[in-house]
């Protein structure tokens, strides 16, 4: 077993609700605050992982492009790309997940372009049309397709002169390609008003904290795929 050393980072937010806010609001501010904080924490977690994976040493561009700067609208991920990526991961000894597939994490616009892939439609229209009805690629060419609208997966605009298209990051991942620390569970804390510093019971404090580190532990088992999405338009 390999051991890795890293320094953990700590994240969190605390917010204060006044008694007046609770008394005068028409909706449940405490419940709403707990919901938003939980979402904030989960999305922060997602972005931190995204940023680590986006620095993967292996990249793949559709249609043999060699840079995100010159991708155009037709450079979408399709069946041909998935077969090539799958073969490469197998060559590298990447282990599949429990269901026997590797995982391909994509933004919604990349998922949309895959739904329009003729190979996907042809292979599902008779046997598993519910995938088309639901708009879920689910499984293709040995990949479990996971779509996410986590903030990190938002498009990146090209900045090259003459190019202003939207490009997207996806990740082709084998099991154990990266690791996440398990030092401190994500947890939301709530403290009721009161105590020596709040004798008039005017402050309710709610927050979350977690310690975190993610590292890629095997670069051969992850590939960042940079491509166009369904809403990528060629510049005029």
């Amino acid at each position, binding site marked *: 077993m390999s051991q890795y050393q890293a320094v953990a980072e700590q994240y969190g937010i605390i917010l204060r609700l006044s008694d007046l806010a609770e008394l005068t609001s028409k909706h449940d501010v405490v419940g709403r605050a707990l919901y938003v904080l939980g979402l904030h924490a989960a999305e*922060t977690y997602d972005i931190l992982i995204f940023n680590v994976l986006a620095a993967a*040493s292996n*990249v793949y561009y559709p249609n043999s492009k*060699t*840079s995100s700067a010159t991708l155009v609208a037709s450079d979408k991920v399709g069946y041909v790309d998935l077969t090539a990526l799958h073969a490469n991961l197998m060559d590298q000894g990447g282990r599949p997940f429990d269901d026997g597939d590797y995982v391909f994490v994509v933004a919604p616009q990349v998922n949309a372009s895959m739904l329009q892939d003729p190979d996907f439609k042809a292979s599902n229209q008779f046997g598993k049309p519910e995938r088309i009805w639901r708009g879920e690629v689910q499984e293709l060419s040995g990949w479990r397709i996971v779509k996410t609208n986590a903030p990190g997966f938002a498009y990146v605009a090209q900045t090259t002169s003459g190019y202003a298209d939207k490009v997207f990051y996806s990740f082709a991942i084998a099991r154990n390609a990266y690791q996440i620390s398990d030092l401190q569970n994500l947890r939301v804390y709530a403290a009721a008003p009161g105590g020596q510093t709040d004798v008039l019971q005017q402050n309710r404090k709610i927050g979350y904290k977690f310690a975190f580190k993610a590292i890629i532990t095997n*670069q*051969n088992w992850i590939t960042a795929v940079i491509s166009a999405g369904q809403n990528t338009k060629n510049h005029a």
Partner: protein
Amino acid sequence: MADTISKAVVTAVAPEVDKSNWEWVEVPELDSFGTPHSGVSVNFEQFRPGRHFLAPELAFTVKDLLLKKLRADQRVFQKNTDQVALRLMQKNGPQKKG
């Protein structure tokens, strides 16, 4: 008789690739931890430690990957929070979604 063309003829008519704007890119022998650099790859083409003479676009991507790898290695031992993540959360996080 099938049309055939010899290798010599192909060589003769194939246009010369202009390499005047190509550049050398060096992948270092060791990474930030002092262990052998694992190299980078673009479309499954491996660039291991050593010097590589590359077309400008590919050279840009390889240099970018090397820079990302360097920064990612440095992040492992940095305790400061990920500012890029925090900026993204401010821009696209749940406060914006309502």
